[in-house]
């Protein structure tokens, strides 16, 4: 009887917990919509600059979030470009090639990297630039590339762990099937294991993209500024949406500026949502091919 009651309580608790997540998401999104929607106008994006001039001819935008959107997109693209190949390759190495002591050592390093707070990663980037200025590159400065590099270090453990876990959890039968068809170990990995573990790997990619898009601590110390405009090169300062939101929320002079921060947060939410959606679509297309 007591066992039955415990089971009922556990089921109700599980249901409530499951419902809590969408409920919280609805509350946060609703709150952002309520506060940010009224400011979601063309002026929020482009300020006084004509939108077409900004979009087509790169006219400078001073009071809008367009440069911050561009900065965030560039940053995410750079991080993805650096982190995805490295993370997936490291995950493959750990799952398929490393064994014994080397596997334990590499796994420990990944866990250690995952445990480093993002502010420390920012500090590392800052210290790296100071070191470079004193030694190899006196002209080096905090910039888009440095931020992307430090963010890559931050998201790498997600990618490595998700790839490793996704490959290791595949049944041995898949490996044996591939080998029985005369495929080499690498061909089995590339043609079968990666295809079968794509959903798991994509989950890691999605987590990494989300983390790179929202992090403020790392970019705060490695190159982001309030008014840089569109980044001209990898070594330029840049703007980014998370920092823009943080800056407005911390330094706002009027209720209108705070409302702008909420609208910017809404834009960031939509931007990451769209990126995740695109990643899921890509994943679905890759799965059947």
């Amino acid at each position, binding site marked *: 009887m007591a066992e039955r009651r415990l089971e009922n309580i556990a089921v109700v608790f599980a249901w409530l917990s499951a419902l809590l997540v969408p409920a919280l998401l609805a509350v946060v999104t609703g709150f952002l919509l309520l506060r940010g929607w009224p400011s979601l106008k063309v002026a929020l994006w482009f300020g006084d600059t004509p939108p077409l001039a900004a979009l087509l001819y790169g006219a400078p935008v001073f009071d809008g979030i367009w440069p911050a959107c561009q900065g965030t997109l560039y940053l995410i693209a750079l991080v993805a470009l650096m982190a995805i190949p490295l993370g997936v390759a490291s995950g493959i190495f750990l799952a398929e090639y490393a064994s014994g002591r080397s596997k334990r050592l590499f796994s420990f390093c990944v866990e250690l990297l995952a445990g480093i707070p993002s502010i420390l990663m920012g500090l590392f980037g800052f210290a790296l630039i100071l070191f470079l200025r004193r030694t190899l590159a006196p002209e080096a400065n905090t910039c888009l590339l440095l931020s992307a590099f430090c963010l890559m270090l931050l998201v790498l453990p997600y990618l490595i762990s998700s790839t490793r876990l996704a490959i290791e959890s595949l049944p041995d039968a898949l490996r044996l*099937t*591939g*080998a*029985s068809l005369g495929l080499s170990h690498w061909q089995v990995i590339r043609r079968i294991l990666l295809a079968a573990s794509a959903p798991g790997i994509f989950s890691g990619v999605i987590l990494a993209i989300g983390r790179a898009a929202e992090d403020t601590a790392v970019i705060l110390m490695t190159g982001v500024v309030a008014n840089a405009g569109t980044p001209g090169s990898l070594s330029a300062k840049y703007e980014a949406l998370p920092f823009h939101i943080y800056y407005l929320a911390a330094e706002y002079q009027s209720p209108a500026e705070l409302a702008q921060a909420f609208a910017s947060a809404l834009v960031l939410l939509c931007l990451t949502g769209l990126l995740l959606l695109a990643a899921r679509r890509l994943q679905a297309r890759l799965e*059947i091919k």
Partner: protein
Amino acid sequence: MKAAIRVDKLSVSFTGKPVIRSLSLEIASGGPTFLVGRSGSGKTTLLRALNRLNECLPGCATGGQVELRLGEQWVDAYAATTSIENLRRRVGMLFQSPNVLPLSILRNIEMPLKVALSLPADEAEARAEQALREVHLWEEVKDRLSQAASTLSGGQQQRLCLARTLALRPEILLLDEPTASLDFKAAQRIEDLLVELKSRYTLLVVSHSLGQARRIAESLFVLHDGERIEALSRDVFQDRDALFSVMDELI
């Protein structure tokens, strides 16, 4: 009948635990040759030792000699000069559960052809169609070749796996309980296929079904605890009562 497989003093162990100990046997070409025995007696390990598939599993150590007649030559499976990938292409394998790849129906057959044999797309496609016809699956799937292979029924999946193996044009086929996970009807189709294929391939079948062995086996071996192997004469294994009484004695 010419021999197709010669096993001499074969020993296989996993992380130091012996599964097969100093086993010797000779298997004739054609068949089907059935290998029966209790669960855990080492039948699957013996089968996988023939195309060196055990080496994909951790901690495997193999000793002794396995020779296979491929073409008109005897090939030492464990010689340093033997290409494992080539050996596995020529000694195909069908598993107990239908292991379809997470790809479309057509790509399940085409991918190994393009990757392992570097065949051009049109030739791979032609071979895929031929293999699907060979296992009588073409009519059932020709309109949905781009659908995921996992959408097929269990029996269809197993025939797809057989087609995938046949498309590589092997000379020896190893079948590890190919009907164990199928219903009666699907199992019957696979049995019929084995009868059709026996004229073109050397078939070695691991099975727990004595009825199946009686129906289609040309020769039958009983394996005991990975150590002793007994060949049963045709008149013994074709007589139901004699077979059951011998099996009772042997295992």
